[in-house]
């Protein structure tokens, strides 16, 4: 494998572009693996009884850092490894439970080049279950402006996420 793996450059990205959709069947293992990978030992992410009887939710549910990891994976599946996340903001309106099929869909909302010459795409990502919005995420991801550009080389004042 080389760095020439999928590489989206800024010129190829336009407002309104849709990212390839990701549908994933969530199991209890998905939730527990995600929580433990994030070192999140809180019981609502692995203990059904605690989630239902203490938290008042219908089951254990996906934790915040694991949702962030899913969003990152979704975005860089599209951008390739040269895509560099600058900022991510998400709001959880509902929870993701075992048995859900979560669907991540994204649309490019803004394309810009900042004062330093860094190229940015702002992507709105929606995580839905059965068509209902569970989390929306706005991500700002740096993309190469040319075939030779690499956002990962930016440091200090040249990186303005």
């Amino acid at each position, binding site marked *: *494998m*080389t*760095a020439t*793996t999928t590489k989206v450059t800024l010129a190829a990205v336009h407002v309104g572009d849709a990212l390839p959709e990701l549908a*994933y069947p969530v199991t209890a293992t*998905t939730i527990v*693996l*995600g929580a*433990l*990978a*994030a*070192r*999140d*030992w809180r019981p609502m992410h692995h203990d059904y009884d605690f989630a239902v009887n*203490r*938290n*008042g939710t219908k089951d254990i549910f996906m934790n*915040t*850092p*694991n*949702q*962030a*990891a*899913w*969003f*990152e*994976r979704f975005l*860089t*599946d599209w951008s390739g*490894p*040269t895509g*560099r*996340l*600058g*900022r*991510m*903001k*998400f*709001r*959880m309106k509902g929870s993701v439970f075992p048995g859900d099929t979560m669907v991540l869909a994204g649309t490019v909302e803004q394309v810009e080049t900042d004062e330093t010459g860094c190229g940015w795409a702002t992507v709105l990502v929606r995580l839905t279950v059965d068509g209902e919005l569970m989390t929306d995420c706005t991500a700002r991801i740096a993309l190469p402006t040319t075939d030779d550009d*690499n956002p*990962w080389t930016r*440091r200090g004042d040249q*990186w303005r*996420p």
Partner: protein
Amino acid sequence: MSDLPPEVEKLIDQVQYEEAGEFPVERGYVYTSCSSVENGNPLFWDDAVAHDLTGGPIAPPTMISVWFRPHQWSPGRIEPGVPLKSHFDLKEIFDLPEAVMTDNTIVFHEPVRPGDRLRTRQILRSVSGPKTTKLGTGRFWVIEVEYLNQKDELVGVESYTGFGYRRGEA
């Protein structure tokens, strides 16, 4: 006029809980995290790609909070370790037994690399008045967490909105 108790009022915008991660950033967790979301980004699996693009292996940026979550148990620890202590302090102060996170903003700066020792500090930014949602009645609060590496470089800033609540009052 704020309805916040003085002990909370005085915490707003103050740096709390400056602490170091309990272990250096390591690749085992990187692989486990990538595996948990089936992230095949070669930056995290192929050292040649990591060398070409980032000057060597890095951790996925969204793993930033992983590195400061304490062990559930370690020698001498009496209570289970919890991250984001400011959040648990507020639950206790307001006597709100349950809590969920509703919003999360992360700004990524310097890449995090295996071997890094991260330090964090927490800053309580705001606490709402009483609110009722479908979960119960409680308060929202915003806590910011700053992360620095061993060179004092900023690697990220994370902002959490939590809702502490008591069930059965909705």
